[in-house]
């Protein structure tokens, strides 16, 4: 069923004239103030630029690989270095009990966003006006404990797309 869904989505995108590429990991971006000019993905022997008016970050947080964790416990967002709300050190990542009803703090990690799904800083100011966030990259929910992973992904993905 996962593969069927994937194919349905890819076909829909391609029917509308979009292109879906496998294996091209986005590594960096060119920025002008709070505007993203282009992003760069890893290609053989170089980076490949992609320019667009609007961008959606759906890199999946910790589980998806969009967040990278250092040995210190610091978690950073892999492409734009967006600020992530996360527990401080690795000691604070987990509860003692494996199946703790409180869940584990580290899985709550995410980037704060406004109702438009744009990333915001601690004052609520928009960090990049042409970027939206979807799915597990977002702060404010805990997918494993809530069983909300795909639900959040669907709703926020749809919303980000509509905006």
């Amino acid at each position, binding site marked *: 069923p996962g593969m069927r869904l994937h194919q349905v989505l890819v076909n829909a995108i391609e029917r509308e004239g979009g292109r879906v590429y*496998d*294996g091209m990991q986005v590594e960096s971006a060119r920025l002008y103030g709070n505007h993203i000019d282009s992003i760069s993905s890893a290609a053989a022997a170089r980076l*490949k630029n992609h320019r667009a008016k609007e961008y959606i970050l759906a890199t999946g947080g910790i589980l998806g690989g969009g967040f990278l964790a250092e040995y210190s416990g610091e978690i950073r967002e892999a492409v734009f270095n967006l600020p992530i709300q996360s527990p401080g050190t690795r000691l604070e990542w987990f509860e003692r009990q494996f199946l703790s009803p409180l869940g584990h703090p580290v899985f709550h990690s995410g980037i704060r966003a406004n109702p438009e799904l744009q990333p915001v800083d601690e004052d609520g100011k928009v960090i990049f006006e042409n970027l939206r966030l979807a799915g597990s990259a977002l702060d404010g929910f805990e997918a494993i404990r809530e069983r909300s992973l795909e639900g959040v992904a669907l709703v926020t993905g749809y919303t980000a797309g509509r905006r």
Partner: protein
Amino acid sequence: MISLSEHSSPEFSLDQCIKCNICTTGCPVSAVTDLFPGPKYEGPQAARFREPAQPSPDRSVDYCSGCRVCNMICPTGVKIAEMNARARAVLVEQGKFPHVLRLRNNLVARAELLGKIAHPIAPLANAIIRWRPARWLAEATLGIGQNAPFPPFAFQSFTHWYHKHPSQLQSDRKVVYFHGCSTQYYEPRIGKAAVRLLEACGFEVIVPPQNCCGLPLLSNGEFKAARRYHQSNVNHLVEYARRGIPIVGTSTSCTLTLKEEAPELLEMHDEATELVAQDTYDINEYILGLLDEGTLHLNFKPVPLALGYHIPCQYRAHRLGKPGSELLGLIPGLKIIESQAACCGIAGTYGYKKEKYDIAMQVGKPLFEFVTGTHSPLIVCDSETCRWQITHGTGVPTIHPVELLAAALGLEVDEPLDGVLEQLPSGASDKVNCVGV
């Protein structure tokens, strides 16, 4: 996803494997045969058991075709294809291949050598290739598939034409053309189209001494020989890289080898190798880059054809998206129907081997069906062995995108495209329409 240091060996990435099996769902070889258990098994899983000093636990890794689809779809960036290739090289080094097979592999893997020997006697060589008893004997003694699609040798090699061709342009804007063995000995028309195209855009095309990129040797685990070949190319090409003169190629596999496969598999990370890698471009990639920059303007005339286009698995491995489709999409009137097939099956020297020929044909079956379904007079494909496999599996002639680009600029093109174009209702002028800024 863990970001590893640029130069750690590919085997380190095995820890990133989350056993999701997405690689196995995409592998075209394990889909058609049980002789290959799949990328996850062969790559990250088996790698844990491959100790350097001990014999390898399995030989099925030789059935990996090196198409790299697994790499493309792995969500955590495990370098499966590289691991398999290196494991095969260890098997070769440990003497696990019977002598006959190793001889056979070396024969089919040395395209340049074969070319050098056969080219002077091309008519005779071509007759022998087509003579069924000779092919039967080759299969019985050496294991070279008797039905495998060996193309005919050209009578005039590419470099011979290049050194004599009339319009050698001198210009400040220079490019180096890396022709590769297939253009040199089998399809010089593609090199001609590329040179005409680049010269029409105002570039002086330099064809320096160069040799086989060594990919067939890499694919057969002959790393020592491959290293010599690559080092030789680096020595020939690095001065152009240092001078900022781009190295452009029409063979997707050759350019990928120069960019990435040779440095990765052989762990060659010295400055000269890296310079050459960073300076190497696929021709579609290069021209698109110039168009994006605005340093080149092209006025294509219409080419009213509907043609099937197969993107080779090794072209996707460049991770540039679909530069061929993008560039061909600029030609007015040209309808490109992209194949969804992951791999044509030939996988370089793979499909030429008796024990793998059937697997290769089965892997290619969906592609052959697609081709027949398009009713296309020609199929477009960037890789030489794919072209030969597609023609072998369907009877449809094949061309490289650069030939269409040349035609769309009114430049001279050869068969088979020439014949197809002649049958079109006559149209626009034959003027060259290419402006360099």
